[in-house]
């Protein structure tokens, strides 16, 4: 067994296969690195731009009140505080962009007294072609190229030996079939693992030398886990290749079959899962939810207004601010709609996640993205952070509204900044940070994918080992 193992290893080491695989991976990794570093720098620049405005630069600290001679203000009695907030790009972006697109929006907290609304502004590239063809992250390369190489390493493991007539000789050597298979399999697997490891190390080296990213602390642990995920991923596809090789008799047939399987696992199945769940668990769009909320609020306020016809109603209907008496009630009702929507989205996400796991690509994708802070759960955390920031801002603005005095404003030479200073909303929204999942939290959610990948590869290898015992060497 060990002889075969070393033989197989030597074969790929000196046969040029390993070198070719290493070079192909390395080139792909470096292309990905180059393109992603461009994207990362753009993102960073964008983030820095969003932080570069000082409070004095901003228009809302110089609110213009149109004042009547009598001291009453005109109908523009709202102050608007648009505060853009962009999440700082995570350096793990290089490994997987994941759901990052959902977390890189510029969020605007538009505070129209006394209600704060969150507006998501698409922080997409203005160049729309980039949506169609986005830069490849490392996950993309692993998903598409590395899995292909792994399959190509294994598809002719057995059937080619048969074709050349060497399988008979091997079997005659006295080793058990299982030992022969294990030796060949481990030799092949180890050689592609070696090629990948070498390319990955060069990639990491270039990442730390050529980009502003510094590798340290928890990030290193995450990268190590990403590396382990890739090894498992390679094992899975190697197993699929081995499976093909023991079920076919000609290497040409094996190759075609292997490529079909690759297409199905990499491109068809993952997309299919989200298609199916979208069909069976439809979720309302954000726009529809916004409309439903508006209609609900209007309905409640209309009802209240009919019950209390004498009350003064100067504010706009539909935002829960028409009357203080039912403000809480309305906002609770609106929150309920949000909650319902969120629940449905979560249900859909859960179903999609599980369905996509039919293909090992699903598990690899989840692991990569979860480890890169851009998984589905990270998005959920991000959303809840936004809600938290929003409600805290809401409290501060309500306080501001209570304290704001027009007389003081006029006396201070039309400068509102004094009254704003105590609040420093800008600073608040700027400093309010997004929390990040710790490694332990990520792992507690992602361990299942590790198990699935390991199980997938073991099952593929076990089936092919059993099948090899019945393989006709003639």
């Amino acid at each position: 067994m060990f002889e075969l193992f070393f033989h197989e290893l030597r074969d790929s080491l000196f046969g040029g296969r390993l070198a070719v695989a290493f070079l192909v991976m390395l080139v792909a990794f470096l292309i990905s690195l180059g393109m992603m570093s461009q994207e990362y720098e753009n993102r960073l620049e964008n983030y820095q731009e969003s932080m570069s405005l000082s409070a004095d630069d901003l228009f809302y600290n110089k609110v213009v009140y149109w004042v009547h001679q009598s001291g009453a203000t005109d109908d523009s009695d709202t102050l608007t505080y648009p505060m853009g907030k962009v999440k700082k790009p995570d350096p793990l972006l290089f490994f997987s962009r994941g759901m990052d697109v959902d977390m890189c929006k510029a969020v605007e907290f538009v505070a129209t007294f006394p209600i704060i609304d969150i507006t998501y502004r698409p922080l997409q590239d203005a160049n729309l072609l980039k949506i169609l063809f986005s830069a490849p992250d490392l996950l993309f390369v692993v998903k598409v190229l590395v899995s292909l190489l792994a399959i190509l390493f294994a598809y002719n493991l057995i059937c080619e030996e048969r074709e050349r007539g060497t399988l008979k000789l091997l079997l005659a050597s006295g080793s058990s079939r299982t030992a022969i298979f294990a030796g060949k399999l481990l030799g092949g697997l180890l050689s592609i693992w070696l090629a990948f490891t070498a390319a990955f190390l060069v990639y990491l080296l270039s990442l730390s030398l050529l980009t502003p990213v510094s590798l340290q602390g928890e990030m290193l642990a995450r990268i190590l886990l990403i590396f382990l995920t890739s090894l498992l991923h390679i094992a899975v596809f190697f197993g699929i290749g081995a499976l093909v090789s023991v079920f076919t008799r000609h290497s040409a047939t094996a190759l075609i079959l292997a490529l079909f399987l690759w297409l199905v696992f990499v491109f068809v199945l993952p997309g299919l899962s989200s298609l199916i769940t979208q069909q069976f668990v439809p979720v309302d769009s954000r726009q529809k939810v916004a409309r439903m909320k508006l209609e609900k609020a209007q309905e409640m306020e209309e009802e209240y207004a009919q019950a209390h016809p004498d009350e003064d109603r100067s504010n706009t209907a539909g935002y829960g601010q028409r009357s203080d008496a039912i403000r809480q009630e309305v906002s609770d009702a609106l929150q309920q709609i949000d909650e319902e929507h969120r629940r449905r989205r979560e249900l859909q996400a859960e179903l999609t996640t599980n369905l996509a796991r039919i293909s090992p690509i699903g598990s690899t994708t989840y692991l990569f993205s979860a480890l890169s802070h851009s998984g589905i759960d990270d998005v959920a955390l991000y959303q809840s952070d936004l809600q938290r920031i929003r409600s805290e801002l809401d409290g501060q603005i309500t306080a501001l509204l209570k304290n704001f005095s027009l007389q003081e404003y006029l006396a201070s030479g039309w400068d509102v900044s004094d009254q704003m200073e105590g609040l420093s909303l800008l600073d608040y929204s700027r400093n309010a940070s997004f929390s990040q999942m710790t490694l332990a939290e990520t792992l507690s959610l992602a361990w299942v994918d590790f198990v699935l990948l390991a199980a997938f590869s073991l099952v593929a290898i076990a089936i092919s080992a059993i099948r090899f015992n019945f393989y006709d060497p003639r």
Partner: protein
Amino acid sequence: MIATIARKELLTSLRTVRFVVVVLVCCLLTPLSAWVLSSDYLKEVEDYQGREDLEERRESSKEFVLNVNKPVPQLSALFRGVNPESINSITLKVFVGWNLPIAAATQSITHGLFPTVDLTFIVGVLLSALALMLSFDALSGEKADATLKLMMANSVSRSGIVLGKWLGLAATLFIPFLLGMVISLLVFFFTTGVRLTADNWVATAVAVLASLAYLALFVLIGVVISTFTSRRSISIFACLAVWGLLVIVVPQAANAVSEMIDPVPTSQEVEKNIRLFYNDFAEGLRRRNMDLYEQAKREGWDDRRATLGQYNNALEMAIQNREDVNNYEREFWAQVVGQERIGRTVSIVSPFSDLSQSLIALADTGPEVQREFMRQAYRYGERFFREIHTQRFANLAGPGYPELIAQQPKFSFEGLSLTRRLENSVWPLAALVIMNILLAIVGVIAFNRYDVR
């Protein structure tokens, strides 16, 4: 003679496993994706209707804003393009700021993780790979099986063999593709109950032709590669490499190149500069109103006169400010369009990028329609802004802002005309056809020098 070989090729490949896979992809996956995307389309239409209804009632006028909406392109159910990411509603504000674009959000939760399987993806990625798998051993396989010599003995011209093989294999792919296309269209009609407009019928027909040209090209690439190689395994690796290069690497690299050649400011930089424009405006207005306030106090103006004075200040400065911002934005968008153009020019060598560009241009889900929508919305907004304020200031005692907003004529956007869609897709389409012709010539020449032994 060509016809005989083509027929033989077609009949032979109909019995292979590869053909079964093609049929499965075309007749199961394609309709499934059409079914799902059709219900997405319905959802988007419902959203659009909801927004339009709100506009009809001018609900938003109470908040001093007006929303303009972009209708859902019919063919987005087949060719998604940038539609899910694009801005389909713009809020025009009477006071400061005016565009809070809201992106459509009917995507699946995991849209960032897995590619959306629409017709562009199926044809561009899956069927192109299958096309290569059909044809990679067209000649090298015959040689390996030693049947090529027999064929040559039948006094068939060499170019006849190449072209016959090409046509026969292309037909093998075309039949299931067209079948799948018909089923998908039926699925679309039955799911949505939509009747395609005449324009969209033409666009669909051209899109089908573009897909056929694209698939024929990949079949031809396989045939040509097999005339350069004499072993099956070498053919398939060469095909894989070419496929990866053309379908995956070049389109992505083209964007990177365009960004390197012609960088544009980031979105937050644009945002910041626009805010600084508003800042200047506010600062100026504050000063002028402050002076006015003092003057009014000194001279004992009445309320009406003071208010009017402030309004006049505001109008004059706001219009100036709006113009500054517009100029700035126009400049920015011109830069972006320039960058896109570079990307397109670079990626014209990739058939996949040609295909997707022509398909989304035809389906009206590409970048052009997005820009046109924004351009028209902004033009409408500019007129709206001037009109509203002028009317309001002309008669302060008259109707207030909400009433004036409600009186504004409705904005309507129809998407790009068929002519413009065809115009936008003509270059990528031409590139596909030219590549077919050039490669066919290469194939014929290469096979004439091919050693059949």
